[in-house]
């Protein structure tokens, strides 16, 4: 069980591990952007109650919210190649990183869809009526008036969700992705200083989360700058 605890190693490991922060952020960025597209599309299907697709989205959201991210990761990792093999596409040699991005995009998509749905409903119907009154059609009033406002309302929850996703990305190493956690595992195998490695990782994750919280708070103040104090929606 490892060697004697050496606090100085915690600092020594940080540069090695932080080098792999890029991979973690790559997973996060790709999955948040893809998730945003999925989320907005799913929310629109839900809000306008498009038949069949609406029920499908309900099932999708329920499944993602009902299963651990670890199980979703395994299902995509083992399931996607099996499904694609039916149409003769062999992706079993694909980099595990892409499976992770797909899983987190699907997971983020479901969470974002619920957030956007609530936010779209929170926009006052008077806004749509006003848009109609100046001659906009359905899609113009939705995309130019309602959706931009709903993004402002949704932002605090989206920010929380992104931070949650950053923390969840620490599970990607279970299917063999070389992110910070994965590099940590190899460091442990090489040096047998498990506790020090995990302490460095905790320091890095904590610092990144604090930084993200700060950035999101600044951005939130920025997008709310036109709101008078009593109606601004702050998380």
């Amino acid at each position, binding site marked *: 069980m490892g060697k004697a605890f050496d606090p100085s190693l915690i600092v020594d490991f940080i540069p090695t591990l932080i080098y792999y922060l890029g991979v973690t952020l790559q997973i996060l960025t790709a999955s948040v952007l893809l998730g945003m597209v999925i989320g907005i599309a799913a929310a629109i299907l839900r809000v306008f109650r498009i038949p069949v697709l609406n029920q499908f989205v309900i099932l999708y959201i329920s499944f993602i919210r009902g*299963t651990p991210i670890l*199980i979703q990761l395994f299902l995509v990792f083992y399931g996607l190649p099996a499904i694609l093999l039916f149409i003769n596409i062999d992706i079993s040699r694909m980099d595990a990183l892409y499976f992770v991005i797909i899983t987190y995009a699907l997971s983020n998509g479901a969470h974002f869809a619920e957030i956007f749905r609530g936010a779209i409903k929170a926009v006052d119907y008077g806004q749509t009526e006003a848009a109609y009154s100046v001659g906009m059609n359905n899609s113009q009033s939705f995309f130019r008036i309602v959706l931009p406002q709903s993004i402002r309302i949704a932002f605090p929850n989206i920010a929380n969700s992104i931070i949650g996703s950053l923390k969840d990305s620490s599970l990607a190493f279970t299917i063999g992705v070389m992110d910070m956690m994965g590099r940590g595992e190899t460091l442990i195998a090489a040096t047998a200083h498990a506790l020090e490695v995990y302490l460095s990782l905790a320091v890095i994750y904590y610092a990144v989360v604090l930084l993200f919280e700060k950035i999101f708070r600044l951005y939130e103040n920025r997008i709310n700058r036109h709101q008078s104090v009593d109606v601004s929606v702050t998380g």
Partner: protein
Amino acid sequence: MTIDILFIWTAFKEIIRALPITLILTILPLLAGFIIGLAVALIRINKVKFLSGIANGYVSFFRGTPIIMHIMLIYFGFPLLIDQISKKFDLGIQSDSIPIILFVLTALSLSAGAYLSEIFRSGIISVSNGQMEAAYSVGMNSFQAMTRIVLPQAIAQSIPNFTNIFIGFLHTSSIAFIVSQKEMTGAANIVASTNLKFLESFIAAGLIYWGLTIIAEGLSFLIEKKATAYNRGGVQ
């Protein structure tokens, strides 16, 4: 690779036998976290000197790092600590003899405490100040007002949040498989690798988690209706 539908049922029966461990890993940390969270929330709301600084740091750190970190840090850190103390005071406790599940439970309890304290805090803050004043006016002291008037309302209002945390920790307990606990995900992994049917096993595990989540949501809805029966909001 083809999908063996029948094997999903076989795996299902095998995995569901690990349900008690998953439930232990979910419920015990939440019970411990309930006490920790309530204490931390009260410390932070009343701004207790010195302690509130520690409480803020605790909540911020545990909410700012992945839960797998907490499990790993305690899994690797506590044995070292216990062996040191044991050697110093000659207690004769060997860290090897402590079951791993206790470390996992400790880590999850500390995480749950941090997450629950935020829910208690927002719940207590959301109860109108007039309630406290009314309690004082009929002669209650702060402790009575808190335990008899404010907390019951705060807890009733927070039921949806508690359900989210319950579901979150039900799912989080799957991380315990990384430190080789045989809870449902661990069981699924064993079934998968002994039969080389990974997809089928994880489909079965996913279905069980999904079912449990739906049951939890249904129960929460019923409890919420009962607990907030006194308050019908703006609709009379």
